[in-house]
């Protein structure tokens, strides 16, 4: 179980944020002005997480595997970072479907 937590940390963290957002939505929602900083913060945490616990290993009978390079490709490098920066702009850039 512990191994699952470590090797799938990216995926689990993302799932946690998704659930958080679902709960927010179900429980009546939050003003975007307040919600955005929270999302940024969670993504930043997620980004920071990518610096730690990058191990090699596989799970579920070889259906899922990860190596430091894959962890890097998944995490630190590409999307979390860019995503975080993209998100900083979201409030400005996305047209509002009213």
């Amino acid at each position, binding site marked *: 179980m512990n191994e699952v937590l470590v090797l799938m940390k990216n995926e689990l963290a993302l799932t946690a*944020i998704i659930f958080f957002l679902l709960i927010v939505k179900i429980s009546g929602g939050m003003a*975007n002005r307040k919600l955005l900083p929270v999302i940024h913060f969670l993504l930043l945490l997620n980004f920071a997480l990518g610096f730690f616990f990058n191990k090699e290993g596989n799970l579920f009978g070889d*259906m899922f595997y990860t190596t430091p390079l894959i962890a890097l490709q998944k995490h630190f490098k590409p*999307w979390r970072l860019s995503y975080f920066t993209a998100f900083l702009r979201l409030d400005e850039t*996305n047209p*509002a479907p009213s």
Partner: protein
Amino acid sequence: MKRTPHLPEFVTLMLAAMLGMDLMISSANMLIFYLSLELATIPVAAMASFDLEKKTSSEGAMKMILSSAFSSGILLFGISLLYGTTGTVNLPELSQSLNGSPLQIMAFVFFFAAFAFKLSVVPFHLWTADVYEGSPFAVTAFLSVISKGAVAFIFITMLYHVFQPMLHIWYMMLVILAVLTMVTGNLFALRQQNIKRFLAFSSIAQVGFILVGISSYGTMGVVSATYFILVYIFSNLAAFGVASVIAEKTGKEKIDDYKGLYQTNPFLTWMMALALFSLAGIPPTAGFFGKLFLLTAGASRADYWFILIAALNMIISLYYYLKVVRAMFMDKNENPVERLHTSNSVKLGLIICGAGIVFTGLFSWIFDYIKSLS
């Protein structure tokens, strides 16, 4: 986005797509791979239609869902053929039981075509420009950078580790498709007037360069492609960021509208110029190193004609990137974009991208670090 009531949904969709990409890169099983690929695609199509007021947005989403469904079908067909000939869907076992029989080659071609769709490699690129143009900027940036990067990574893994017995076949395919992609992307980008379509075609050309690097088959291939995609993310996000600020505030998306931008918005102009230079591969930006390392990787197979074509394509691409630079710095305009107030978060985002563009190249340990991991 501050005004939309659907922020949680939008973010959820984006995160779901990212979850799909993460799983996709990690998958060591064809079925997991297929599932996660779908997870990475379908939310993006929903995001593409998020701009409910614009017809083009829904049109783009429709095109995207149709073309990706088509490519998924092809992919699934390829997988089933592979399963039929080898009797397994686990990647490590697959690579051992491949022997290059005609049926397997056919399966591989289907497989390749599906990837080409996702990466918008010519001749499977036709959906790209329309989808990019119609979608909201945030989604376009996501599509062109993030999802492409993820697919490129799993593509490399598949080619290097699974289809390694068919090296001579996929090498030729890659060379031909890389040349086609670079040339077509560049030639179409020459004629674009809309900044989104322009960036769409330029991103097709960039994928051609990534294919050059991938064709090397070796650690350099993986490393240079990973590095290039990192650099590309910074550059492309900066370009999309500036374009989206301008489009959001003034509704202007034409390259002609950028004329005289430097007089009114020097900060945005420099950021855009930096991003475009990086995309064109001009030092001291990181794009220069990224492109050069891709070409170095490609040159290790000693196909100098191939590298020469790639290098000459850099000239064409420089021409159209300079077109935008010229419009911003040199051309005069009666009514340029007015002085825009950019919020601090936008500035921070752009500065992070700008710093990434400059320092990813000059800090050479980043490249060495990637190399040490592989």
